[in-house]
């Protein structure tokens, strides 16, 4: 069951919108339509948002993303196409039924916060419940809970204009959370905040999402933000959806020039993690002979091996050169890894250790077993946007699991 489904959605402003849709369906370009006096804002968009995911819609201003999000809760009526929230077809509802869906199923956070300046913070947070007719005591309790969730305990009686921008947007977030809707629309929610606060809010959103598991549709024009937050990203251009995929797959395979130009500015070190760039490693026990280890190295075609003790705990790494120059056993040749990280560690956090040591960085799984190696070459290749040794830097979780299996076998 998808949380939110959009099918063949068109939104055309201006004269004769229906004719414009027919012409667009017949293959007319957006420019043709504009020449005839209508403005196509959303053109033939279909997408499905799964429960519990953060779905980012990203595009420049004028790409139709704000129009799209406003059709999701019926603030704008599409010219053609349908929107479903769960089982409810938003586009078929009106009046009281539509208001009910908005009160219970789908809430929204706004770019400029859209708080009521004449009400206290807690009353703002309780707004959705008030509209629904929840009694005062219950709704204030729920609002206070939501405020605590976003870290605004003790601010309940202040007025919005006594708070900083970031705190005001937290009130906006609390207002949306207090409604207990499972779908959350966030319209450029962090764009009006300064960069430091924006980072903080992004972290907080991810943390909240880990706990609450809402379905979030997040609109942004900032690709870094999209990459940080999104489980999946839809890129819009000129009203059309031009690319849809996970952040890693979009980075690895932009698809067209337009997307590629966007990606130029992306901070890749925060998108890719150690798991994306690691090479599966072979592991040898610390008590084997250097010859055995060298054989394993050759078989694998790798430049280094991880070395474990009798209980499978990591001892260190050895390179081919170490083994050749070593006089005694493997234990004498082993050196400490540059760092031990988990597969989810971002490349940004790998840069310093990978650069500081000639030894590779070891990636370990939850049980502390080594599962991969990252050398500085792989890090640089991923940052440059090209794959090292022909392997695409991005892989789905499934791919990675396969590689893990392979490395153990």
């Amino acid at each position, binding site marked *: 069951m998808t949380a939110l489904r959009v099918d063949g959605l068109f939104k055309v402003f201006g004269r004769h919108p229906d004719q414009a849709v027919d012409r667009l369906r017949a293959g007319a370009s957006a420019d043709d339509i504009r020449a005839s006096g209508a403005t196509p804002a959303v053109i033939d968009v279909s997408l499905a948002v799964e429960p519990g995911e953060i779905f980012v819609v990203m595009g420049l201003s004028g790409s139709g993303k704000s129009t799209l999000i406003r059709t999701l*809760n019926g*603030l704008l009526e599409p010219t053609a196409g349908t929107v479903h929230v769960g089982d409810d077809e938003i586009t078929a509802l009106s009046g009281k039924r*539509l*208001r*009910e*869906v*908005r*009160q*219970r199923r789908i*809430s*929204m956070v*706004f*770019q*400029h916060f*859209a*708080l*009521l*300046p*004449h*009400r*206290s913070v*807690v*009353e703002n947070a309780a*707004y*959705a419940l*008030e*509209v*629904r007719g929840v009694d*005062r005591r219950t709704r204030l309790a729920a609002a206070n809970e939501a405020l605590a969730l976003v870290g605004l305990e003790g601010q309940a*009686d202040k*007025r919005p204009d006594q708070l900083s921008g970031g705190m005001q947007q937290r009130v906006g977030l609390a*207002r949306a959370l207090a*409604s207990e809707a499972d779908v959350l*629309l966030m319209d450029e929610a962090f764009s009006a905040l300064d960069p430091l606060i924006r980072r903080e809010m992004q972290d907080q959103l991810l943390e909240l999402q880990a706990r609450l598991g809402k379905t979030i549709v997040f609109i942004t024009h900032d690709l870094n933000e999209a990459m940080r937050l999104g489980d999946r990203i839809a890129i819009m251009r000129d009203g059309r959806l031009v690319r849809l995929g996970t952040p890693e797959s979009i980075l690895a395979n932009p698809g067209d020039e337009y997307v590629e130009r966007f990606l130029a500015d992306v901070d890749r070190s925060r998108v890719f993690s150690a798991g994306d760039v690691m090479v599966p490693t072979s592991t040898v026990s610390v008590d084997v002979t250097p010859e055995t280890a060298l054989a394993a190295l050759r078989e694998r075609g790798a430049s280094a091996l991880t070395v474990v003790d009798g209980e499978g705990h990591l001892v260190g790494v050895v390179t081919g050169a170490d083994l050749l120059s070593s006089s005694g056993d493997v234990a004498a040749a082993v050196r400490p890894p540059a760092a031990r990280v988990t597969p989810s560690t971002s490349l940004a956090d790998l840069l310093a250790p990978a650069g500081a040591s000639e030894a590779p960085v070891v990636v370990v799984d939850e049980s502390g077993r080594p599962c991969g190696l990252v050398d500085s070459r792989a890090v640089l290749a991923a940052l440059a946007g090209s794959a090292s040794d022909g392997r695409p830097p991005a892989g789905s979780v499934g791919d990675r699991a396969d590689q893990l299996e392979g490395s153990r076998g």
Partner: protein
Amino acid sequence: MAEPTTILAVDEGPLPRVPVGEWVDTAIDWLKDNFDPFFDAVKTGTETSVEGVTDGLLALPPLLFAAILAALALVVRSAVFAVGSLLGLLLIQSMELWEPAMQTLALVLVATLVAIVIAIPVGIAAAKSSRVSAVVRPVLDLMQTMPAFVYLIPAVTFFSIGLVPGVITTIIFALPPGVRLTELGIRQVDRETVEAGHAFGSSPWQILRGIELPLARPTIMAGVNQVIMLALSMAVIAGLIGAPGLGQVVVTSISRLNIGLGFEAGLSVVILAIFLDRLTSSFGERRREGGLRSRLVRRRTAPAAGTPVVAAEDTVPASRPTAGAGI
């Protein structure tokens, strides 16, 4: 072709004469013939209410009443304003113009109340619908720019001279800024905030009452302030057709060429005007830290003893301080 109906029509121009004046005369006659009971009712209602308010204003000893108004000034604004008001009001009393001043005040209060009761709903309708706005705007232009004396005359035909035509013309003259500023205020409310109301499933009425009116309040209050000021200026002109009050004193002084009396009456008008202006503009500016007054309002609207102070800002429709003071 109609005959020339006025002595000014010396020459027949190239265009046919459109007998606007005759139409108006006919319409007025028709109204007078067919709606006489209605005009009688309006007349009685207006007389009763204005005279009632006048009696109320004159019921207290003038000194005590002046002191009460000064206290109100203190609560709403500042000590300076209170002292100034007190001195001004005492000056009116010492010039022996207190009674006409209170008659004028009563006329202004009643006319303002009626004007606001009409203006705010019309302003809201105009803000919501461009079509209503397009119809209302020329009507307002007409009300504001048509020379006041022109509608003093039909008012007299309907209600004969005296208080009532004075009130009616005052309402007509004072109403437009109330409508215009209400429309402006509602149209200026932040779009995203209204959108938030929709996004959380508010009904149009909840959005109007909970978002648009509170946010438009300063502008609407500026409109109310303008209504009062225009009502005051018209109330004086209404003295020409026999409306009691300072206007009549002014008319008397003109006919007697009594410069001193005329100045005294004029000065009284100015004092009333400044008092009312500062008082009402303070309502529009009311802010949360706004000291004594807002604390008083909160206490007054607190539903029951023992309820915490935040609860005073409850959203029970009738007791909202914003809604209560705004309209």
